């Protein structure tokens, strides 16, 4: 399993942790999985997920104004996390097909 796969599985674990109702439907997490439309995360659950992502991956997503609102899929979130881990600047991050992601 390479590093992106490991992070994907970590992300899956975090999503499971943050979901308030474990009895709700669950789907396998892929880079294309959408936080709201597929996983059904609500706004505060998303914010909880951001919080534990910051702790787990040791990055600060909230330090970049407007960034969180642009992250609609697991793949987009992991891309930004990897960018931040490498010292990149997320302001320049412009996910493709952003409009479709919702």
């Amino acid at each position, binding site marked *: 399993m390479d590093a992106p796969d490991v992070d994907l599985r970590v992300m899956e674990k975090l999503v499971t*942790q*943050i*979901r*308030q*109702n474990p*009895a*709700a*439907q669950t789907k396998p997490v892929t880079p294309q999985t959408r936080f*709201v*439309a597929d996983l*059904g995360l*609500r*706004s*505060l*659950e998303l*914010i*909880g*997920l*951001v*919080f*534990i992502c*910051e702790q787990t991956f040791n990055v*600060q997503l*909230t*330090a*970049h*104004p*407007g960034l*969180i*609102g642009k992250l609609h899929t697991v793949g987009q979130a992991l891309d930004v996390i990897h960018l931040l881990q490498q010292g990149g600047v997320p302001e320049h991050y412009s996910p493709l097909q952003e409009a479709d992601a919702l």
Partner: protein
Amino acid sequence: MRLTALIDKAATYGDSTLTVRSALAAQPVLKSFPELCNDVRNLAASLADLGVLPGHIVGIQAANTYEFVVWDLALIELGAIPHVFPEDWPISQVKQTATSHALAFTVSEQSGDLVLPNSARLSDYIRFAVRPTRMEERDVLTRVYSSGTTGKLKGLVICRHGVEHVASQFIDDFSLSDRDRYLFFLPTSHFQQRLSLYTCLFAGVSVMLTPYTHVFHDIAHFKPTFLIAPPAFYDVALAAIIPQGSERTGAERLQAALGGKLRFMITGMAPIRRGVLEAYQRYGLPLLEAYGMTEVGLIAWNAPGDNRLGTVGRPLKHHRLFFAEDSEILVETQHSLASGYFDVDPEEAGRTFLPNGCIATGDIGELDGTHLVLRGRKKDIIITNEGIKIHPSALEERVLTCELIRQAAVITDIYRDDLVLVLSVDDPHDETTISKANSLVEVINGSGSLRIARTVITRTRFAVENGMLTRNMKLNRGAIAREFSIP
């Protein structure tokens, strides 16, 4: 405690601060209370120069910004009446309402005219109405919108004496002082947030407003001594901070993540799971349930040292509670937050502000000795634990456009966490039916903020005989939920 003295009082707290983080700015605005009061007085003076008089109504539309706070307080200081529009209203609707009510003028963040006098000349932005309304009633503090039990926005006229009454009791019962710190993240267009801000200004409590996206980050750094938030926040905080298997260190983890200074936390606005209340109690952080509605203000609250789990607390002093035949809670008080509605049909208003002077809450409840216990909503409206109101009949009508679906009911699961759609069909195993039902759910889930989390497809018909229909053939959601809400 008088709102006319609010700014003078707040200015005496030299060590207290207001911090406001806006959603799109990297750095928050930090002001001491004297600096804030100075900005408020400067704006009030500029507005007075422009011709704003006591009783003039001024429209404001903004997100949680420092400018909003200063404008709101400056208008109150002048005796003018802020008419606060929901932040998601289009500017055309704001302007139309402003014209129909003859507001003196309206400032909106959307139009970029919510400025402070030190950054621009107000006269460049503001055009007075030719004949603005001037309210004679001196007790009117502000006009706001609230979604009542019908979910339809209602205009509410908020009274000064109602605000003063609640603020004063809150300060007493929760022993607020200038050593306290309070953080909130819900929109200030919800009047409860402004009410909590005025209370803090009276008591010298340092305040931070932050967008919800930053709430966990800012709580850890701001170190509040108390919080007021919807149930979903506390639910998520538990899940985020204490992963399964780490319960043994839960207390330390919570303290660290929530800043380590919390004296108490309050929740309301929607039902909360008993397990969440018990978990916080187990970890040594009191989570207190409170109950209120904008029409009355706070009706009851649990307080530190007087907390009974499973109740929403002791009714506030000077409120008398009565219970109608159907157990609806009726409140008689001389200190309601609102004196009435505006832009609401009088007949509809009369169903809440009753002719006998009581306010009908729409909630079912009972007194358990001294403390109030809620038993549910009088009407069918579903309130999720995030406080979002769902109108099930509109959703059901949409689903019933599919001819294969005979009956439909939207309910919540047992914790009110998620919406469950129950569909009565002829053959629950028919692939076409299942596929059509799934497509409908996908369309609903993709079209707005609500989400159907689970769909039950059943052959069972909702009928009077099995109790799932009432005698007048309406859905008995309680009975349907008892049958289908548990996965």
